[in-house]
């Protein structure tokens, strides 16, 4: 088989810092935080009520009732981001009717749908009271099954659950499937529910920042006074396409995926692993056939936790010296299952608009993080190649490298 290259021909984003490309680009340039508070979490028993603020989209203008009722909260976000991405890529349901277009989406929970269905059944002692939609909303694959149906996709349909690396893996695996000739186009991405139910278990283990009095300052990756992550969500979609296929149909090309590297850290479920992170980055560089010196910008995974940020800072510094780094989670919070895909989009917007978005809220580094060349103010910069890190609970690590084309 010839050397098939994989490019990005569309993307869509629905997040706490904007509901489309234009709004998100503006937020990235100005360093706008999307973090606020959710007072309902106090009643539920959260110790931190901080969250990314993401509005529920109104899908009535786009979808009929049958299409809407089976969508979980995260699938609603995913529909909007995927619609934007397909529109950008000039793909409509009329031209998806062959089996060369598939979907891989990252999702690792559908908590609200499960809890609501369970409550309905418990109250009545009758599972029928869950209604018809529960079965399709509660499965982890609810996004891929719904979007395949709505957009009439007839290639692969597969959900990837890999904690906070879920959607990064979808892009890497999508690249592999296209390179192997199995598919010409794959809708990749990830979505994350934002409701009160969804993040309670993370709050239970003390994962969240307690800086409730100052929400927009709470997510502060690499800062000396960071005290935990801020949960967030929405959806991000990236359309991957074989390069010659994209050229033949005059599709826009926003960048080329040139490297995917992964590792599993083994050992602890929750403790960050220097070695695991390092292997994933090294594997992505090897896969891309480039050296660390070729990376112009690193979009760090850094979630604003003490141990995770420290381990990642050391790996980045050890492998790439003073490469410019920022964590867009300083603005968005941690978008968990969607973060790998959303951060590819944030970085793509930077690359194609020649700037680096700031790692806001950084005031002072600690011993581990002060070694980094951290970009804390919006900086004009020509980026040809960037690396995006995603590391998840259970030690699942995924790194992607994208190049300008």
């Amino acid at each position, binding site marked *: 088989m010839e050397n098939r290259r994989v490019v990005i021909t569309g993307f869509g984003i629905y997040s706490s810092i904007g509901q489309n490309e234009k709004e998100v680009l503006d937020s990235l340039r100005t360093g706008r935080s999307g973090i606020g508070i959710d007072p309902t979490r106090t009643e539920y028993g959260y110790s931190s009520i901080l969250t990314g603020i993401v509005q529920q989209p109104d899908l009535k203008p786009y979808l009929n009732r049958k299409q809407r009722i089976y969508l979980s909260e995260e699938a609603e976000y995913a529909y909007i981001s995927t619609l934007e991405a397909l529109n950008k890529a000039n793909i409509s349901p009329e031209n998806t009717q062959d089996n060369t277009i598939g979907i891989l989406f990252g999702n690792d929970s559908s908590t609200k749908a499960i809890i609501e269905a369970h409550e309905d059944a418990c109250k009545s002692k*009758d599972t029928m009271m869950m*209604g*018809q939609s529960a079965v399709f909303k509660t499965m982890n694959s609810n996004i891929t099954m719904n979007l395949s149906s709505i957009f009439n996709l007839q290639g692969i349909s597969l959900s990837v659950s890999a904690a906070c690396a879920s959607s990064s893996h979808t892009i890497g695996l999508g690249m592999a499937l296209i390179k192997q000739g199995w598919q010409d186009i794959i809708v990749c991405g990830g979505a994350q529910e934002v409701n009160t139910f969804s993040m309670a278990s993370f709050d239970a283990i003390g994962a969240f920042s307690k800086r409730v009095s100052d929400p927009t300052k709470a997510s502060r990756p690499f800062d000396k006074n960071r005290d935990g992550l801020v949960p967030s969500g929405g959806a991000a979609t990236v359309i991957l396409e074989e390069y010659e296929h994209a050229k033949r149909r005059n599709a826009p090309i926003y960048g080329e995926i040139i490297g995917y590297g992964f590792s599993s850290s083994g050992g602890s479920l929750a403790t960050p692993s220097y070695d695991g992170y390092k292997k994933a980055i090294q594997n992505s560089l090897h896969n891309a056939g480039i050296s660390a010196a070729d990376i112009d910008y690193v979009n760090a995974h850094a979630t604003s936790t003490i141990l995770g940020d420290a381990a990642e800072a050391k790996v980045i510094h050890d492998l790439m010296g003073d490469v410019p780094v920022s964590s867009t989670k300083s603005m968005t919070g941690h978008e968990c299952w969607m973060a790998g895909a959303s951060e590819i989009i944030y970085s793509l917007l930077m690359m194609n608009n020649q700037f680096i978005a700031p790692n806001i809220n950084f005031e002072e580094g600690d011993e581990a993080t002060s070694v980094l060349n951290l970009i804390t103010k919006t900086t004009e910069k020509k980026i040809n190649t960037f690396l995006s890190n995603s590391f998840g609970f259970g030690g699942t690590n995924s790194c992607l490298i994208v190049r300008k084309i």
Partner: protein
Amino acid sequence: MDITEIKKIINDFLSNEFEIEEEQLKETAKLKDDLKIDSLDFVDIAVEVEKQFKFKITANEMSSIQTLGEFYTFISNRLSAVTKE
């Protein structure tokens, strides 16, 4: 509950939740062919029947009902039977 009230409750539900146009809600309308209510929708109808009329309707009973008029009559008869008991 009289038949007028039963019809109003059912029509409001079909109109609001199933987004069926009110002019389509005729007694002769066939549930599957005219109103496009499928077997999965029967589950949501059963949920609503239990909430509104306080009795359970089975999937077999639902699938034996062909038209909207038959559905009104079925509900009315079941409510009468409950009252007589």
